[in-house]
């Protein structure tokens, strides 16, 4: 059954959103109607509450606090602001409860000023989040901090709203089995 389904699914993938019934060349099992609204013809399979990256839904479900992964900074600054204390604490709690999990902290800056200084500033931002996590019980080896400086802007604009979005540290997760976001 499984063997027959794969070619059928592949041809479904190639033909995309065609609404006409797909002829079954192999004469095997008919293709079932697809659910899912993505329009790609592929419904992501969820087994055991794990998402497409192999991470628990707790980390990615938009309703979960742990799905909030960005910490924003003021111009030239790398202190974690009070408004992010709760968020950092939630992530620290998760890392304490799940010692096999790791996080990569990516520090970013806006486009203004020296690229090299911004690389260091991004590192400081990632490092500040790392220190908070470790202080709250995460282990050093669970947390790596790197910087992307101004090189990978999330918002390519050239105004304050773009800049404030780019002054940011992101938290990326990796599960104990090595699957995840980095």
């Amino acid at each position, binding site marked *: 059954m499984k063997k027959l389904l794969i070619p059928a699914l592949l041809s479904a993938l190639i033909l995309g959103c065609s609404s006409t019934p797909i002829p079954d060349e192999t004469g095997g099992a008919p293709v079932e109607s697809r659910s899912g609204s993505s329009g790609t013809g592929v419904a992501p399979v969820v087994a055991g509450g794990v998402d497409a990256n192999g991470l628990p839904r707790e980390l990615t479900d938009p309703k979960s606090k742990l799905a909030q992964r960005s910490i924003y900074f003021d111009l030239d600054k790398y202190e974690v602001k009070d408004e992010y204390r709760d968020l950092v604490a939630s992530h620290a709690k998760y890392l304490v409860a799940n010692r096999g999990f790791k996080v990569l902290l990516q520090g970013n800056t806006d486009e203004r000023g020296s690229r*090299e200084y911004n690389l*260091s500033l991004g590192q400081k931002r990632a490092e500040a989040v790392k220190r908070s996590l470790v202080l709250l019980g995460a282990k050093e080896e669970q947390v790596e901090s790197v*910087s992307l400086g101004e090189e990978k802007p999330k918002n390519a604009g050239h105004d304050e709203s773009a800049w404030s979005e780019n002054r940011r540290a992101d938290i990326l997760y990796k599960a104990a089995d090595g699957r995840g976001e980095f």
Partner: protein
Amino acid sequence: MNTMQPFSRRVFLAFFLLTAGLANAQLSIEITGAGANRIPVAIADLSGDPTASRVITATVRSDLERSGLFKLVDASGAALDENSPVAHADWKGKGADALAAGSIGRSPDGRMEARFRLYDTQKGVSLGGAAYVTGNEQLRAAGHRIADFIYEKLTGEKGVFSTRIAYVVKSRSQFLLQIADADGQGAATALTSTEPIISPAWSPNGSKLAYVSFEKKKPVVYVHSLATGQRHIVANFKGSNSAPAWSPNGSKLAVVLSKDGNSQIYSVNADGSGLQRLTQSGGIDTEPRYSPDGASLYFTSDRGGSPQIYRTGANGGEAQRVTFEGSYNVSPRPSADGKSLAFITRREGRFQLAVMDLASRQTQVLTDSNKDESPSFAPNSRMILIATEVGGRGVLSAVSSDGRIKQRLSVAAGDVREPAWGPFFQ
């Protein structure tokens, strides 16, 4: 089906134009200022092969004119070579203080040879001459050598027309590390990557570039031999590796590593061995540059609460603060003559090129732009190359160290950034 053909033709044409645009990613130069007292000089057409003459003579003239230090006096119709008798009074009468004349001949091994002589028409004497053997593909190089000779004889300082520059072009989703002549011509791509490339730095003999590449999804320092294309990793530690700077004798590089937490300055041998930590601060230490005598290092640090420029010994030790005005002074670059320090200063939210006279500590802001970055001195210390932004696009600009002469260099395709002016031709 019949709508298909024009569509694919359009796609093909667009593809052709894009690739053609990339292949011709030459820099074009626009001069936006000139020196106050330009030396009037006449450059006669070289006699001999007319095609070769045209290329060489045009190169010499445009080099001298672009420097902002010379005014070209019309020499059309003058049939002269390096051995012709010169009517000094006539040239003086036309307003020329100096005259160059020459020819293209054959060297004993059958290649082309560009010969010329330079005259001081005021004193009615020859200032010397030279001959450069060249091939068809190196005619412009011969022109640059002649322009360097004339420049040095008339100004007393070495010319930089035969030098090269390195810079990064961001074209669509690609990053190209390119090398071009100082006039922006003859661009060649040394490295193409889908990830950012920053901070190219020339080795003192001009054969290698150190730079930071993100191709391993994080910043790593490489050294790249330009002639062979061979490259090796100099620093790839945990965290970020960046900001390479060569020691003046080329044996070592200062680099910035975050392996122990924050960005700190280390030195490492050019082959990646012998790592040694040079700074110890709780904050950011980055952008190291050796002084030309190799005895000290200038760098950027926020140890005092805002990013400022400091100086320490080449092997570390106590640091002295160098900049005090304003809350953001970064990217220190000492000139080769050791007299000045170029850097980027933030004034009322705008990032501008400044230069400090190291003896008097006087600082002068040289530009009126918003987004200057990455200064680098020409090896004769006269011009400073920077990245800046015009109309939302990255361009390169060369500014004389007195701020009077400004040239803009722009690439037709894409954003240009991270310039580095190479050493003297060797």
